[in-house]
């Protein structure tokens, strides 16, 4: 960013500094480590100076917020205009329990809702399925039919609040339920705001909520795009997620690369379907992890924005600048939380949350300090939310846009991460013979992603075991301790109550209408039509999640993941 003469002077000064100042010092007092590196294994140099970023062109590579390539942020005023949405992921027990927790969070100043479902719902099973035994309402709220959604959103006006749903194979069913509640409340569909995660590719790489095989999974996601751009134009139809890839053990570079590659795959699927890319793009969102290595995380977020802008504009030819934006949600790293000395997790989460804000996130979930033990207690959730509020209102961090822009290290690292991520994406594109969509599907088939992530996880663990990576309170500064934090217990009666409700719904609904709706869905799936209108019909007839997924399983078959350690 400087002219050649100034750079030359800096290089000369640097050599002089190394010889006369640094070397004698290092000879007397050695550095703590031979090599410093980020969590992705990128070597961190002793110091960065203008020569490290000399190749960057400010206007081309950074520019101003709200302008291509959006490295510094997607909005012209960022948090000076509006703070990020504080969106704590929550849900447990029955719809009544979760509705009460949500009302508490809204009262405490949370600005958006985010739904955690229990495992049976996530896996498309009803609460009375034998496989659901012991898991109903445990890690999230149990939802079997529209009846549960009516209770969940009781007293919550859908035109005022936006809701995020972390759900994947049954994402279309949940979107249909939300639309049905909006219809009941009299909220026009084009006013509904929220997000469904709906990202199956990362399920195959990492999160493992697997029901249908990869290709039909992508087909249904594309159906949701095609239906959603017309019916719910303000709703994010997918949250392309790196979070779970990272939690499964990937490096930050892999998280970035695989997430962007998945995003490209979805866009390619939409283009193949004939969906107008400029119409769809504003309804795409992203979801990243924020881990402990502060600058690497900030660089990752900035690199992601720049990459996506280039991809949408230059590769896929989106015309509207709005289509070039990468908007993202961040969650702090669950896998970084320790069961030992749990209060230390508040500090970890604070650092991670600051990285997300300095990286320009649109919304944020901060983990609670007790989550290596159980679902968070109310007190722990409150501290997590307060962490965001302190960053927002006390730290001054949000008062200027992209305050680390121009830092020699952060700019160098942003550029480095982008380059490393592109290397991966080009490998994936090659696996797909020019198509990223085919490349990602190929990578799922061959176990490419699973192996990459497992190897990174094992290598991280080895570093921890052998003391090369320090985890405070775990492999250093450990103490004998007795747990003193209160643990949230889910009422064991939940399963019985939920099954009871399901039985009542089944007794009261019009079973002929349910059968007709499910037949319609079967025929839509068999004839390769868009399944969303039939799913909405089925939901409104009070068909269960298990019945609707059951039809899709019959038509498309099920998927078993290859066993790779």
């Amino acid at each position: 960013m400087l002219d050649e003469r100034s750079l030359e002077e800096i290089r000369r000064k640097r050599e002089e500094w190394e010889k006369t100042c640094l070397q004698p010092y290092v000879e007397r007092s050695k550095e703590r480590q031979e090599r410093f590196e980020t969590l992705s294994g990128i070597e961190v140099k002793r110091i960065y100076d203008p020569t490290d970023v000399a190749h960057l062109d400010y206007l081309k590579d950074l520019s101003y917020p709200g302008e291509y390539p959006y490295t510094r942020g997607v909005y012209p005023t960022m948090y000076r205009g509006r703070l990020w949405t504080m969106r704590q992921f929550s849900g447990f027990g029955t719809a009544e329990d979760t509705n009460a927790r949500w009302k508490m969070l809204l009262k405490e100043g949370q600005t958006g809702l985010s739904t955690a479902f229990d495992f049976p719902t996530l896996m498309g099973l009803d609460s009375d399925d034998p496989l659901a035994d012991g898991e109903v309402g445990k890690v999230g709220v149990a939802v079997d039919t529209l009846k549960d959604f009516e209770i969940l959103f009781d007293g919550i006006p859908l035109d005022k609040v936006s809701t995020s749903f972390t759900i994947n194979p049954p994402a279309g069913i949940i979107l249909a339920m939300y639309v049905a509640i909006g219809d009941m409340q009299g909220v026009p569909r084009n006013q509904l705001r929220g997000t469904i995660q709906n990202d199956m590719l990362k399920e195959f790489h990492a999160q493992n909520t697997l029901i249908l095989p990869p290709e039909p999974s992508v087909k249904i996601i594309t159906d949701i795009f095609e239906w959603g751009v017309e019916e719910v134009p303000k709703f994010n139809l997918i949250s392309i997620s790196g979070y779970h890839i990272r939690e499964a053990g990937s490096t930050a570079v892999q998280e970035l690369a695989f997430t962007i590659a998945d995003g490209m795959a979805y866009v390619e699927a939409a283009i193949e379907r004939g969906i107008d890319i400029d119409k769809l793009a504003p309804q795409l969102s992203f979801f990243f992890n924020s881990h402990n290595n502060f600058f690497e995380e900030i660089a990752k977020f900035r690199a992601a924005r720049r990459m996506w802008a280039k991809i949408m504009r230059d590769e896929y030819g989106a015309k509207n600048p709005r289509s070039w934006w990468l908007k993202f949600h961040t969650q702090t790293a669950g896998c970084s939380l320790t069961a030992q000395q749990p209060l230390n997790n508040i500090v970890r989460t604070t650092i991670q949350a600051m990285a997300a804000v300095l990286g320009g996130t649109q919304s944020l979930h901060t983990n609670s300090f007790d989550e290596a033990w159980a679902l968070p207690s109310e007190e722990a959730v409150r501290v997590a939310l307060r962490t965001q509020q302190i960053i927002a209102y006390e730290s001054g961090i949000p008062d200027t846009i992209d305050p680390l822009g121009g830092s020699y290290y952060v700019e160098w690292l942003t550029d480095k991460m982008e380059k490393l991520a592109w290397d991966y994406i080009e490998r994936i594109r090659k696996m797909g013979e020019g198509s990223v969509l085919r490349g990602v599907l190929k990578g799922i088939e061959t176990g490419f992603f699973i192996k990459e992530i497992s190897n990174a996880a094992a290598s991280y663990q080895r570093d921890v075991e052998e003391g090369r990576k320090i985890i405070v309170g775990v492999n250093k500064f450990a103490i004998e301790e007795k747990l003193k934090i209160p643990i949230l217990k889910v009422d064991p009666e939940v399963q019985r109550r939920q099954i009871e409700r399901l039985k009542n719904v089944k007794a009261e609904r019009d079973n002929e209408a349910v059968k007709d709706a499910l037949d319609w869905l079967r025929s839509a799936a068999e004839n390769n039509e868009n399944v969303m209108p039939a799913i909405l019909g089925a939901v409104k007839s009070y068909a269960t999640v298990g019945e609707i997924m059951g039809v899709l399983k019959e038509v498309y078959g099920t998927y078993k993941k290859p066993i790779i350690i």
Partner: protein
Amino acid sequence: MEKKIRVLVAKVGLDGHDRGAKVVARFLRDAGFEVIYTGLHRTPQEVAMAAVQEDVDVVGISLHSGAHMALVPKVINYIREYGGDPDEIVILVGGIIPEDEFDDLKAMGVDGVFIPGTPISEIIDFIKEMVPKKKEQARKKKAVA
């Protein structure tokens, strides 16, 4: 040559968090154990059947779903039902387990509970110590009977 210790690493129930199970499986294998990994989403019956058929010395069950109090005793009961002897097998549980449930799990027949952050070397040492110990206890118990 001493017989290698056989370990079944199992994911039971619906949760898909397999990072811990896989990393532990890999490290146990590197430590010289024979390791069988069940893969995801297994029922208690499937895990118990695998434990009996593979004649393992150790069953390590990984859960992040909060369903351990319901599913772990089922695994143990099915092992017995399928003709295995849970008194001879070292039963371990790992994952998100509240501390106040450790004792309940132990009362059900679990020998060790390992939470996030446990060094894997600790699990390896525990297995090496417990396998012969449990077999010895079971032998004595049978001799008395």
